[in-house]
C-alpha cells in the first residue's frame, strides 16, 4: 500500500508538523509526498528519510496552497493511493476535506493513533473522549496530530522528484496577502518547551514578562484563549481545542486557570508546570509541579535561577 502525504510549507520551509505526517503515513505503507511550491521545497522533501517519491507541482497557482486548485490536484493524483494524509494544521484542514468530498470519502481528522489500515483513533468533544473509528471508504483521507507522531528527520533520504502538471479547477479564489507573526522563537506546535500565559498576564504589555524566560529556555510562547480574547497576543499563540494542540517536553502555564478547552490543547505534554495565585485553579489538577504564587514575582526569579 502507498500513502500520499500533502507536505505543507511556510516561508519556503517544510512545516515540521508535516514531517510528523510522514511518520504517520509510514505506518500505512510506502510514502509519496506532494509538494506544491518552490523547487527548493521539493528538494528538501527528497532528503526526508522514508520518502519514496516526491511529486512536485511547480505551477504558480499552487504556490499559496489554496484549497480549490490543490484539492483538484490531489484528486487527480489519488487513483494509485490507498491513503491521503496531511498534518492537522490550517492547510491540511482546509484542503483535505474538499478533496475527500470530490472523492466521495468521509475524511478522518486529527488522528492520534493508527490501529490498522482502516481503523484510527481520534479525539472528540475537545479531547474529553477518544473515538476509535473504522472507515468503509475505498480510500482513506486523514489528517494527523503532530503531537502524536514524531517528526521524520529532515536529512538522509534521497528520493526521486517527479514533476506533476497543473490540472483544471474552478478559478474562484485568489490569494491576496499574508501576515505572519515574525518570531525568532521555535514553532509553537513543535517546540521542546512552551511558556504560556493566560488572563493572569493582565495586559499586552505585561505579557512580555514571559519573553526573557522563553529566551532562557529556548521556548515557544503560547497563550490561553482568555489571553487571546483579551487582546494580549494574536490568535496564532492560542493553545487549546480551538487553537493549537501541543505536547512539548515541558509546558509552563502562567496565570492560566485551566479551562477544559485549554487543557485539550496541552494535557499530553510530558511535564506540566503551573504558576497561579488561585489555589483552586483547575490547572493544578493536571500539573506535575504547581506553585501558588504571583507570576510577576516568579518569572524574574526563574530567569535568574536558570542562569545559575
Amino acid at each position: 500500500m502507498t500513502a500520499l502525504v500533502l507536505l505543507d510549507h511556510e516561508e519556503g520551509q517544510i512545516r515540521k508538523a508535516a514531517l510528523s505526517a510522514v511518520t504517520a503515513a509510514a505506518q500505512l505503507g510506502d510514502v509519496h509526498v506532494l509538494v506544491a511550491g518552490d523547487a527548493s521545497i521539493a528538494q528538501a522533501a527528497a532528503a526526508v528519510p522514508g520518502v519514496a517519491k516526491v511529486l512536485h507541482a511547480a505551477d504558480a497557482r499552487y504556490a499559496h496552497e489554496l484549497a480549490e486548485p490543490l484539492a483538484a490536484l490531489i484528486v487527480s493524483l489519488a487513483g494509485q493511493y490507498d491513503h491521503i494524509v496531511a498534518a492537522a494544521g490550517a492547510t491540511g484542514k482546509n484542503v483535505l476535506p474538499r478533496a475527500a468530498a470530490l472523492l466521495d470519502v468521509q475524511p478522518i481528522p486529527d488522528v492520534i493513533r493508527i490501529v490498522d489500515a482502516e481503523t484510527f483513533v481520534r479525539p472528540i468533544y475537545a479531547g474529553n473522549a477518544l473515538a476509535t473509528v473504522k472507515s468503509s471508504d475505498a480510500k482513506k483521507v486523514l489528517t494527523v496530530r503532530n503531537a502524536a507522531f514524531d517528526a521524520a528527520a529532515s536529512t538522509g533520504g534521497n528520493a526521486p522528484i517527479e514533476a506533476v502538471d497543473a490540472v483544471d479547477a474552478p478559478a474562484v479564489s485568489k490569494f491576496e496577502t499574508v501576515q505572519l507573526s515574525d518570531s525568532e522563537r521555535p514553532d509553537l506546535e513543535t517546540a521542546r518547551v512552551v511558556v504560556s500565559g493566560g488572563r493572569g498576564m493582565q495586559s499586552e504589555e505585561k505579557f512580555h514578562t514571559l519573553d526573557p524566560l522563553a529566551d532562557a529556555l529556548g521556548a515557544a510562547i503560547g497563550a490561553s484563549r482568555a489571553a487571546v480574547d483579551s487582546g494580549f497576543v494574536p490568535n496564532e499563540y492560542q493553545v487549546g481545542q480551538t487553537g493549537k494542540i501541543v505536547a512539548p517536553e515541558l509546558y509552563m502555564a502562567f496565570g492560566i486557570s485551566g479551562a477544559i478547552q485549554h487543557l485539550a490543547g496541552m494535557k499530553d505534554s510530558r511535564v506540566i508546570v503551573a504558576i497561579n495565585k488561585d489555589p483552586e485553579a483547575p490547572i493544578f489538577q493536571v500539573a506535575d509541579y504547581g506553585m501558588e504564587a504571583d507570576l510577576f514575582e516568579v518569572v524574574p526569579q526563574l530567569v535568574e535561577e536558570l542562569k545559575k
Partner: protein
Amino acid sequence: MKILVPVKRVVDYNIKPRVKADGSGVDTTGVKMSMNPFDEIAVEEAVRLREKGAASEVVVVSVGVQKAQDTLRTAMAMGADRAILVLSEESPEPLAVAKVLRKLVEKEEPGLVILGKQAIDDDMNATGQMLAGLLGWGQGTFASKVEIADGHARVSREIDGGTEEVSLTLPAIITADLRLNEPRYASLPNIMKAKKKPLETIEAAELGVDMKPRLSVVSVAEPSERKAGIKVGSVGELVEKLRNEAKVI
C-alpha cells in the same frame, strides 16, 4: 443576496461529556443541548450582513432530529428570517450533511453559505470545505473577517503562523472562526417573534441523499487522566525539580 447558514444542535459547551459505560459513544440523554458555538458566530455574521444591506434574507438549516427545531428557533430569534429542518438520524457525518446542503443550495440559490468552522461534538471541521468542493465554489475557511463587495468576498483567515487574506468569487462558502464576531443574545421579544417565523420540515430521504455513515464507531473511551503532581514552595525548588527529577531543563 440570500445567505444560507447551517446550524447544528450539540451538547452544550459548558457540559463535560461523559462516555457511556459500554463504550459505544458519549451519553447525550438528559444532557443540555445548544447551538454549536461556531454556528452562532455564523448566524451572527449573516444577520449583520443583512443589517448592513449586503444581504436580503438569512435562511438557517439544520440536518438532524426533530429537536433540532429548537436550535433553528434560536437562530431565528437572533435574526434569521426562516428555517429548514432536514430530518435524519442524530449527528450525520459531514459528507452526508454536505450532500444534503448541496441539494438545498441548488433549490435556494444563496449567494453565500456561512457555517461554523467545526462542531464541538465530533470536532470534524469538514462540512464547509466538503460543501464547497461538491459545489465547485470558493472557500474561505477559519474566517476572522469578511467583507462583501462587487460580487466578491474578501476573507481574513486564521492560519498556523498568522493571518491570510483571500478573495472569493461569489457564490462562496465561509466558515467562521471564533474571532469573527461576538454573537448577540436573543431578546425575549425576538424569541417570541421567532416562534411565528416559518419553519419547513423535510425528510433527508426526499432529497435522495444517501445518509449512510462511512465511519463505524468501534469504541469510545475516556482519555487517560493526568494526576495532579506536587506543589512546590519556591522558585529554587521548582528549578531543582525540573533539573534533577523531571530532567527536562
